[in-house]
């Protein structure tokens, strides 16, 4: 009992001491807890501390708002030279930047150090659905677009919606305004609607469906990746079914735009160490992420290309003018 008391006392002293110095290193997750950005921040921050890459625990701050826009504006206007700050980003960030949804701010206002993994897109139906392949689904939409409702976690015109439109377009269905899409508060919520029969197809990320897949409640029609995902080899890609659609949700970070090159390099190095760690490999496997290591200048170039690609696609489909 005395030992317990000492432990609690020690822990409390430690907590008080640390909270005094809590302003050290910070990771901003530009959304509420529970989503992809939050996962990225928390997992990477924990690994960094566990491996001793940073001396004290990293403070994770949730700054939800405007689909990441509030955090982006905050970093650009108020924290532009803060070298101890990194912010979780993903394809959703790129999509919003591409569609000009951050109120005129663009990707050059921040720096892009690394992406660590990628969450391949998936199209999912309930286990009792009559459709076995992607073409079954596309044919059903062609026959009667009003009979198929798609459910996803992003807003209309967002990344989850684009995945559906891309797949249908490759399948020869062009009347995108006839496609029914409902946006829910996240992938799990969208899946619930599909399993309950209120919508027919869920569009989202692999990590969002892993639990339901293992429980046998859903069937993945196609994974929108170049190759089949390790650990889920029995799920066919869209490509091998004849639909040339690749849509991965990469998970990475951005940094304030005004930091020194030395600080930028330090972050690239830190994130590289995380990417190589066993702990990250485990976290990826547990969450259905595929490796997607891109660092430094490579990643900067790649992000710009990715944004351009999404912009072109959004224009082609008509989401933006």
């Amino acid at each position, binding site marked *: *009992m005395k030992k*317990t*008391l000492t*432990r*609690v006392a020690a*822990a409390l002293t*430690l*907590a008080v001491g*640390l*909270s005094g110095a*809590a302003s050290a290193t910070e990771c901003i997750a530009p959304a*509420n*807890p*529970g989503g992809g950005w*939050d996962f990225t921040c*928390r*997992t990477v921050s*924990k690994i960094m*501390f566990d491996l001793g890459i940073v001396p004290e*625990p990293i*403070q*994770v701050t*949730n700054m939800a*708002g*405007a689909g990441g826009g*509030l955090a982006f*504006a905050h970093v650009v206007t108020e924290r532009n030279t803060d070298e101890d700050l990194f912010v979780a980003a993903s394809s959703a960030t790129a999509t919003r930047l591409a569609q000009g949804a951050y*109120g005129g701010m663009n990707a050059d206002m921040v720096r892009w150090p690394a992406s660590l993994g990628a969450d391949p897109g998936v199209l999912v139906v309930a286990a009792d659905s009559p459709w076995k392949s992607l073409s079954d689904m596309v044919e059903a939409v062609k026959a009667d677009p*009003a009979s198929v*409702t798609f459910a996803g976690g992003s*807003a*209309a*015109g*967002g990344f989850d919606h684009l995945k559906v439109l891309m797949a249908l377009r490759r399948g020869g269905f062009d009347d995108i305004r006839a496609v*029914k*899409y*409902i*946006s*829910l*508060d996240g992938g*799990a*919520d969208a*899946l*619930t*609607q599909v*399993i*309950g*029969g*209120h*919508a027919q197809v869920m569009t989202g990320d692999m990590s969002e469906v*892993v*639990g*339901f897949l*293992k*429980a046998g*409640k859903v069937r993945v029609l196609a994974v929108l990746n170049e190759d089949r995902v390790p650990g889920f080899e029995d799920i066919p890609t869209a490509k091998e079914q004849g639909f040339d659609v690749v849509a991965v949700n990469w998970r990475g970070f951005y940094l304030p735009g005004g930091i020194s090159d030395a600080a930028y390099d330090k972050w690239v190095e830190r994130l590289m160490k995380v990417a190589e760690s066993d702990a990250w490999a*485990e*976290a990826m496997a*547990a*969450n259905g992420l595929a490796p997607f290591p891109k660092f430094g200048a490579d990643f900067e170039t790649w992000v710009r290309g990715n944004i351009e690609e999404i912009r072109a696609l959004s224009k082609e489909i008509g989401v933006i003018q």
Partner: protein
Amino acid sequence: MDILSNLALGFSVALSPFTLMLAVVGCFLGTIIGALPGLGPSNGVAILIPLAFTMGLDATAALVLMTSVYYGAMYGGRISSILLNIPGDEPALMTTLDGYPMARQGRAGDALVLSGVASFVGAFLATIGLMLLAPLLAEVAFLFGPPEYFALYALAFATLGGLASRNQAKAALAAFIGLGISTIGLDNSTGMPRYTGGNLHLMDGIDFLVAIVGLFAVSEVFVFIERHGVGSAVGVRLGRVTVPFRDILHSGWSMLRATVIGFFAGVLPGAGASLGSFLAYTAEKAIARDGDSFGTGNPKGVAAPEAGNNAAAGGALVPMLTLGVPGSGTTAVLLALLMTLNITPGPTLFTERPEVVWGLIAALLIANFVLLVMNVPMVKLFVRILSVPAGVLLPMVTMVSFAGIYSISGSWFDLILMVAFGVVGWLFRKLDVPTVPIILGILLGGHMEASLRRAMVVSGGDWTYLFSSPIAVGLWIAAVAGFIAPMFLRGLIRRREAPEVVTDGD
């Protein structure tokens, strides 16, 4: 028996002198956080997550600490509701309606003890429900599509009429104001800004915490400035603190019914605890023989919402654990905690990680007993707050509200907004416009609109889809009944005691 052996597994994981200490610490911190206006269970858990990591706690210990904070905050919210007429957090909103009048009658201690017991009953039975029924209940979430959700929210607003005793138009107006406020921000389904004037601070809408603190806490300050602090001790007389066995026995059935309603409201992802306590209160008011004394300090009006919101807190864990769908702000934070601990909630959690699930359930039971034991002696301490003179107490409440909102959002904009809500709250009090429906509108408006629009997408604009399932029709019938019943009853009562009782001018 299977459940017993599972529970034994849970307790073997979660029960040790160290975790018991954590539970005590967590319950205490949670109660304080819940009682402070501006800080609720979700920020409480979010604030203390770093603490769990800096202490280097393992998964189970972290869960025990966080669930204690969660339940502690759920218990704590009622304290400021009853003593100050300021809800400590949004689920405690309904407790102000009868809790504060009770306190003004010198029964603050009774109200606190009674609500503590009601909280325990609600939370304890909900935990049992979670234990026995979670995998089964997960199926309930599948039954609720867009039309069913819309009908559920319609039910909540239809029963508002029963809440306001005087001017129906003013209650309706308040609800519409809340709904209107909920439309500010980025439109969820098209991503287009609405009523933001291009201001980034408004893109994410107006936080209900800002509205609650402004409408209840800041406006209270204005009332006191106007009165020069007359009626000190916030108008509450101190009474002796005893256990009000009679009230507890009398409201026993209320607690049980409220628990059932709250638990199911919690199971449905959406509004969680607030909807649970609201529906529990209006249902209790509708069926109670002394229903018209609700709002004037009826002990059942204290017991029902407290049992309801705590049961909903337990119910909200069902979709979080079994589907990975967080039904409320707090469960979203708990979900984040689990994921940082490398536990991914979902349909396989119960079979793959039984030690986590049952450890959590054991932790909930522990937290509940700790809270019950802690709360009765603590009531004496809390009631002392009322002997603080108004000139000290009200600045304190204001400064706590400011610090709470500011330390979370870090934005002066929210603070100005809070002051504006304070001024509006003061004016509305003068004009006898109830403020509770405003908060409900803000809380539920977004969900309500989203489900209506989803329903219209699915049906291609066909309104009959809203009444297309037995569940939806059942909820609509309840909504219509809930809307008409109070009018009918009021007509009856009026006829019986013809000249209407003059309400006091306060």
